[in-house]
């Protein structure tokens, strides 16, 4: 039975695997570079800030965690909507009252629901959402690896490639 089909895994296994490895390495480096070179977005908040730099940093961080419910894809730190301004004022006042981060986020979710959190909470309903990047990366990575390894094991028929026939 095996004679009917040519065995395509036989020629030049070692040489072509090295090329496959190089391709995978380049792909991994590109992904890493994208992650590392990511620039943080700057806020457009014009309201008077806290005098204390620690409080100011905390304020900015919290403002970036809360969604503007009018613009939906913006945080209240990035949005110019009147509601975002009101929510920033509320945030400053809650901080002024000495509320903790958790208390402030709870205050907002009690009124606006989980949707107000720009970063969705990790609850059973959002497990798939949180796992999606890893699942997609694993799925795509596996598919890519399978294709690259398989193709690299095929005999090279490109005459312009100087590596032709080298194993």
């Amino acid at each position, binding site marked *: 039975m095996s004679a009917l089909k040519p065995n395509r895994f036989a020629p030049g296994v070692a040489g072509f695997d090295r090329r496959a490895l190089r391709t995978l390495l380049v792909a991994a480096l590109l992904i890493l570079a994208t992650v590392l070179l990511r620039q943080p977005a700057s806020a457009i908040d014009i309201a008077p800030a806290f005098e204390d730099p620690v409080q100011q940093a905390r304020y900015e961080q919290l403002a970036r965690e809360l969604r503007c*419910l009018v613009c939906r894809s913006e945080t209240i730190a990035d949005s110019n909507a009147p509601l975002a301004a*009101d*929510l920033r004022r*509320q945030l400053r006042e809650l901080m002024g009252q000495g509320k903790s981060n958790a208390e402030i986020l709870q205050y907002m979710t*009690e*009124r*606006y*629901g989980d*949707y107000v959190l720009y970063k969705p909470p990790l609850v059973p309903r959002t497990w798939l959402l949180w796992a999606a990047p890893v699942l997609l990366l694993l799925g795509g990575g596996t598919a890519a690896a399978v294709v690259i390894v398989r193709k690299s094991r095929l005999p090279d028929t490109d005459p312009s490639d100087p590596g032709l026939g080298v194993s």
Partner: protein
Amino acid sequence: MNQTAIKTEKPSKGVWRYLLPVGLLLALVVVFYVSLGRDKQTLPSPLIGKPAPQFELPRLDDLSLPISNAEFAGQMYVLNVWGSWCVGCRQEHGALLQIAQRGEVPILGLNWNDDREAALYWLQSLGDPYVASAFDGEGRIAIDWGVYGAPETFLVSAQGEIIHKHIGPLNLQIWERDFVPMMQRAGVSGK
């Protein structure tokens, strides 16, 4: 026996190669088609079934007089969030007037982030469906009620619980469909 088994297996494998992407595509089409009809603007309020937040604000028509929703304790009422800057509020205004005329339930207005003069002119020229309007010029009470866009209409039971919230312009069809049955149910269980 062995040969026939291989023969039937091989083509079916090939068929799957083509059916799988087509199947995935069809699944995506179904997902997208269903999503088309879904309302992504309306956010569910976490306040449904919770006690209505208490407030005391100046009355729009006379800032020296306070208005509190505590005055409505023990009876069902509607809180309508509006502003003269709000296009949807203009749209629903006629329906509010009609609902007010039916006298089923008092409508309390929450005038949100508005210019007082403009708001008074609005009521004077278009008619006033509200038993009273509270003037929330800074939008603090609106935050307490989880308001994110006017018009929003809350139905509060006699027990002081928010039992329904409608986001967007109201009309009589929506009123009959959503509010009236809820008022009847709450009215029966409340007595």
